[in-house]
């Protein structure tokens, strides 16, 4: 489904600030895979997301979706296959537009945006039904401006908008990191339900070790731009946070450090 071959990316090449963001990364996802990604600060997790979504271009290597070479496609063209939820709850929605208008824009993913009316009554009832699944009462506030919603509500809406057109790949970039624990748990639960129900091929970056182990069928750990550990479904079932920390120390020779790292609940 998603293939990264020998992908490398340098920041500020040839200068004093040169930094290896990704070094020769190989990653292959099968349809329906749900991979969680953990790693310390500057391990290259976000760069990986940005390279897949097309925000950045790799210096070398190639990115394929469903065997299509998408190397040359800009972000907005890749969007027809890739749904994305950002860490910042403000990033995934347009604050001065209404909930239904935001949903209409998400619904138009992969379609030509023409002169037909964005929010029709048929779409509106469909949106209401979809919002109902979130279980947070947004279905009664279709005409409210999204800027009025709380961070948790906006992130739930972002998740719905990113997924309800069934993208081939779903990228979740620490999408619960900016929320309080209760909200984060709600969004995690919604994520799990939606991914499972729609069988979405998902790549989720998280700073929560326990979450990384609990969710998904595969776990990868990154450090200094490389994938240093790849845990398959079977091994992942019995994995503990302590084991994971131990593995990291053994491979990289230092303790795992991330200022936002959460070891467990």
């Amino acid at each position, binding site marked *: 489904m998603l293939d990264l071959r020998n992908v490398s990316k340098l920041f500020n090449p040839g200068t004093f600030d040169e930094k290896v963001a990704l070094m020769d990364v190989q990653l292959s996802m099968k349809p329906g895979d749900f991979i969680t990604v953990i790693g310390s600060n500057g391990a290259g997790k976000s760069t990986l997301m940005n390279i897949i979504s097309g925000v950045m271009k790799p210096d070398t290597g190639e990115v394929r979706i469903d065997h299509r070479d998408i190397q040359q496609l800009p972000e907005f063209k890749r969007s027809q296959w890739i749904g994305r939820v950002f860490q910042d709850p403000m990033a995934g929605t347009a604050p001065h537009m209404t909930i239904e208008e935001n949903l209409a824009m998400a619904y138009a993913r992969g379609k030509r945006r023409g002169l*037909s009316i964005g929010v029709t009554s048929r779409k509106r009832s469909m949106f209401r039904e979809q919002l109902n699944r979130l279980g947070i009462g947004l279905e009664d506030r279709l005409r409210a401006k999204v800027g009025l919603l709380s961070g948790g509500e906006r992130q739930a809406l972002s998740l719905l908008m990113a997924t309800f057109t069934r993208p081939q790949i779903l990228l979740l970039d620490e999408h619960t990191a900016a929320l309080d624990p209760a909200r984060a748990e709600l969004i995690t639960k919604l994520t799990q339900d939606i991914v499972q129900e729609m069988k979405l091929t998902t790549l989720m970056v998280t700073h929560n070790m326990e979450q990384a182990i609990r969710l998904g069928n595969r776990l990868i750990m990154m450090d200094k731009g490389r994938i240093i550990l790849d845990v398959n479904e079977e091994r992942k079932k019995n994995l503990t946070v302590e084991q994971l920390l131990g593995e990291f120390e053994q491979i990289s020779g230092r303790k795992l450090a991330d200022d936002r790292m959460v070891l467990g609940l």
Partner: protein
Amino acid sequence: MVSSLIGAVELGLIYAIMALGVYITFRILDFPDLTVDGSFATGGAIAAVMISHGYSPWLVSLLAFAGGLAAGACTGLLHTKGKINGLLSGILMMIALYSINMRILDKPNVSVYGEDTVFTSISPLVLMPFVVIAIKLLLDLFLHTDLGLSLRATGDNARMIRSFGANTDNTTILGISISNGLVALSGALIAQQSGFADITMGVGMIVIGLASVIIGEAIFGAGSVFRATFAVLLGSIVYRIVVALALRVEWMEASDLKLITAVIVIIALVFPSVQRSIKQKSAARRRSAELATLASKKSIGGDY
């Protein structure tokens, strides 16, 4: 007095089309577009020259609109594909258009006095309300289409709409084009109403447009698109009435107008942020006083 007020409403209606254009760039795209000063005169120049050559004034107005579209597209291309700062791309086009407008006019001003204009058989006061309302409603409708939604999202959260597959370069270029099309149309109608087009007729137009948008929003609110465009129309008329009244003050000269306009815009831009910071300060002061009394009560009570 009454006649000057009627004149103000008439001008306000024609300039309202320009203000709607400024609303698109300034408010929807969040892009302060200075092309306006050039494209307004482009519209006027196209209208005056073609009408004096005997073309139909309706066709001419339409062509002026198209001229504005082209000018706006150039600014949009400079900004998106050329990656030139937004203000600078507008300034560059404004300067370039000065030469182009001079080429169109061939002399500093062209009169259409006595020629057939759209206002020959119908007075502007009768015709313009229909034209302006029609343009406003069409714009409202467009901003609610799929394309219009992505145009609005481009100004609101470009990263978000890109992640849903819209090409924000294209929507930006489209928005700036439509904006300048409306501005040029307004220029064409002003040339027909006043009977001439002048190379300097666009000077300061962006500030007048901003003033109309800001005054309109301040007085009439801007909750929805429908309401905001309506507010812009009324803002344009109110601005012209203010100007008409200001001109009646004895010691004021017509050339002071631009200064007055700039002051209006400055007040309108500064006032909300000053108001906000005063509110925040007083709220903070009240709350700290509250907490302080609470703390002192506790220490006096001392019953732990």
